[in-house]
């Protein structure tokens, strides 16, 4: 898993499969970076992710709770149709905005 910090924005490149097993590690690492770099905005990058279950939703909701207190925002980028479906079904799209790239 890779992380990128640009000023107060943290990008988390999610793994291929975002389940309970991986969620634990992402949570620990992300929270460490959020505190260390005074992160306000978070981008979850789904470019490699093909599987997610409710544990993934838990990770996103948890990080949202942290940054929303600081007035920050959470985005999801490079989501495929399946990921969009899971995010929408869970209702997390009310908190997290899905960034759609412009199609030429």
């Amino acid at each position, binding site marked *: 898993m890779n992380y990128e910090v640009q000023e107060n924005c943290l990008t988390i490149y999610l793994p291929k499969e975002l389940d309970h097993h991986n969620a634990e590690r992402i949570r620990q690492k992300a929270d460490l970076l959020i505190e260390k770099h005074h992160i306000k905005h978070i981008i979850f990058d789904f470019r490699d992710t093909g599987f997610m279950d409710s*544990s993934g939703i838990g990770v996103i909701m948890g990080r949202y709770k942290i940054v929303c207190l600081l007035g920050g925002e959470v985005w999801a980028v490079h989501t495929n149709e399946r990921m969009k479906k899971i995010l929408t079904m*869970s209702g997390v799209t009310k908190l997290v905005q899905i960034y759609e790239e412009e199609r030429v």
Partner: protein
Amino acid sequence: MRNTNEMEMIFDSVSVNEGFVRVSVAAFLTQLNPTVEEVADVKTAVSEAVTNAIIHGYEGEVHKVIVRCRLEQEMFYVEIEDSGKGMADVQKAMEPLYTTKPELERSGMGFSFMEAFMDAVQVESTLGEGTLVKMCKHIGKEREIWTTQSL
């Protein structure tokens, strides 16, 4: 009965097995020639049930989880069983967003996902004895039927 097939897996309740189990179940399912969507649905539902067994059933202790799969014509049946602590109120547990472990950032969406992605979900649980989740899904109903049109 013809066109039936069964398999059973018994594995330790450690999180690293979650991926292994859903991929194995998906591989077993391919015999029914499912769509990509159907495979994804089953994988998500199985992952939810197995995660529940590991986190809630055994609460981090290592014991055995049993997964049984059965194919019957176009029907896919799967059971996930643990001998963990069980649930007092299954109805309550199945409510969306209800979770007994908010401190672990459980979203409370597990059973909702199972119900959304499978045709039927049935839960039997006895406090102190364990939980059995039974799910089924009709495979192939979303597949388009190809007909050749004669000119």
